[in-house]
């Protein structure tokens, strides 16, 4: 049958509709469909033009579904719908609360993720444990390393090989409901002071050792990344003293802040921007005594079931026109100057998303050892069970 079509191309309209229905029913593969209808060739020609239909996305059979592991409130749902409409691949989204949780799932195996969103300090560990592959940059024609900010992208490169490409960067600051809290909160020291006084029973810390312990260390004047036992002891004392006054230990703080159950929380840039957009009384401040600056990446697990679709979605997300919509929805700052140019002025002038360089100076990038240090993990567990 296929041979008949090859000999009698071009295809008639009836037959095209017929083949389309067969494809929709799943009777034939997309490859077969593209082959018999000549659309594959047409797409290949069109793909020379940069845009939606590119050779990488349609080079192979992408299957019908894929899965991505990411953070809460981190994508524009329309992005995945548009990707599905363009490629026929449905995207299953798995949401996580911490990098440790993602690492634990990948270490245990059998996740089925084809793409995931690790943070800068985890990448060297993933590489060391052999959990992610070097990216095949030929499958990501829409990524342009020359337009990226090296400060945010270099941790995706291990020993000269690119294992991950950046999604966005951000900071870990403090979200404060200014209707409820009148005391100034401009540093992590003040965060913990206010948490036991004016915000008694109304403050939240992350269910994540890296930021909760890190910010407690900063409040005491130590490094965000400290793993020195004597400094960790001090941080533990502070956290355990504050614990009875906390509203909750939870990384999903948006619902509580929106309901004004909580008045103050440790907060990532993108959540801060989203909260402030909907409730202007919630302000986002960076600790003047320090804190975290980070970048999130896209990487493809070695165990991915549908790598072709993983690359296709990644390439789709790296297209500036698509990335812009993502950034407008999630509120985190971009690492890509092509995207920055396309963003509306009210986004790029938003000081929550693009703070002054001076405010970023005291911030530190998380270190790989900060994530994997067993002492910090145990400290967090003692804090939570105290």
């Amino acid at each position, binding site marked *: 049958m296929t041979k008949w079509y090859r000999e009698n191309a071009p295809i008639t309209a009836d037959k095209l509709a017929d083949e389309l229905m067969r494809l929709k029913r799943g009777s034939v593969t997309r490859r077969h469909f593209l082959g018999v209808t000549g659309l594959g060739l047409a797409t290949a020609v069109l793909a020379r033009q940069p845009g939606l239909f590119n050779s990488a996305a349609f080079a192979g059979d992408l299957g019908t579904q894929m899965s991505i592991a990411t953070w809460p409130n981190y994508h524009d749902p329309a992005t995945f719908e548009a990707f599905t409409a363009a490629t026929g691949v449905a995207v299953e989204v798995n949401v996580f609360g*911490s990098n*440790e*949780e993602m*690492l*634990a*799932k990948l*270490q245990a195996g059998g996740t089925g993720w084809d793409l995931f969103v690790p943070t800068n300090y985890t990448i060297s*560990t993933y590489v*060391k*444990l052999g959990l992610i592959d070097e990216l095949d940059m030929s499958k990501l024609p829409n990524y342009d390393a020359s337009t990226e900010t090296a400060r945010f992208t270099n941790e995706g490169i291990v020993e000269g090989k690119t294992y991950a490409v950046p999604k966005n960067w951000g900071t870990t600051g403090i979200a404060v409901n200014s209707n409820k809290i009148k005391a100034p909160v401009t540093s992590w020291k003040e965060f913990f002071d206010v948490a036991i006084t004016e915000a008694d*029973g109304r403050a939240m810390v992350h*269910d994540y*050792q890296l930021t909760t312990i890190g910010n407690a260390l900063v409040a005491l004047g130590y490094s965000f990344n400290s793993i020195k036992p004597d400094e960790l002891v001090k941080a533990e004392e502070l956290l355990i003293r504050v*614990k009875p006054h*906390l*509203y*909750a*230990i*939870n990384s999903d703080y948006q*619902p*509580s802040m929106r*309901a*004004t*159950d909580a008045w103050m929380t440790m907060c990532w840039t993108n959540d801060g921007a989203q909260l402030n957009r909907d409730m202007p009384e919630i302000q986002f401040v960076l600790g003047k005594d320090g804190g975290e600056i980070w970048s999130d990446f896209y990487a493809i697990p070695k165990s991915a079931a549908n790598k072709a679709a993983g690359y296709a979605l990644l390439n789709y997300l790296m297209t500036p026109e698509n990335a812009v919509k993502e950034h407008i929805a999630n509120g985190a700052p971009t690492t890509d100057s092509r995207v920055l140019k396309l963003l509306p002025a009210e986004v790029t002038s938003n000081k929550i998303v693009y703070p002054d360089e001076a405010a970023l100076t005291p911030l530190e990038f998380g270190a790989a050892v900060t994530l*994997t240090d*067993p002492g910090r*993990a*145990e400290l*967090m*567990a*003692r804090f*939570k*069970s*105290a």
Partner: protein
Amino acid sequence: MQAAMNTKRNLVTAALVAPAAAWLCVFLVLPFIAMLIFAFGERAPEGGYQAAFTFAQFANLPTRAAAFWNTLVLAPVGALLCLLVAYPVAYYLAVKANPRYRLILVSLVVVPFWTSLLVRTYAWMYILGSRGIPNLLAMIGIEDVRMLNTPGAVLLGIVYGYLPLMIMPIYVSLEKLDRRLLEASADLGGRPVSTFFGVTLPLSLPGVMTGVALVTILLLGEYLIPQLLGGGKVFFIGNALVDLFLQSRNWPFGSAIAVTLVAVVVVVLMVAMRIAWKVAGTRQVDLV
């Protein structure tokens, strides 16, 4: 002849037991053995498990004493609260309710199971959150009531979530109750209260015991309700386990805690059941 019948009966028994036995072996016994092996191992530098033989994980158990304590206190307290709420409901369903509507009423008890416990517990987050009941209380002048993320909220969630599991066994044991015994008690001058404590309650004890055991065992492994309604501050052993496997990736220590929890549960339940059956047994003897 007799021997042949016995062989046949044995074969039938074996065939009936085999699926459950295979299931238990693959999904309970083998994982438990793996857990035992892990419990004597070490955490690999980046997390996970590496082979070793050490008692270090068990020596580390006191660091989770608070979680054990919370669990061992809140599980029985939760089960007893469940019992206090469930018994009158079961009594009404089995004894007082109009038999015509009884089936409908009993199925209403099961209806909540049609929705996931996760969703129902989430609903409680909004009911107890400051835009829920505290907001209503504020309207009548009772300000600043904090309900969510307290041990009380966790207990409430527990009672709510596990109530049907307590009602059902008590209902079944009360339904079998021989009414003539109640009449006999009344004939012999027993007032309703003494009839209840002398006849009804002792005869329903097997159902009560089943319910308490069922709820307590499930509560000892509870994770979801403390996580959602306790705000991560009310920490059960289940939460400690989730953290060890999913956050700090300390499989050996997690395994040691899990093994210890199983041991504690077995001992506690054996002692509790022994005492309970003894009490129930003597009461029943008194009746005869």
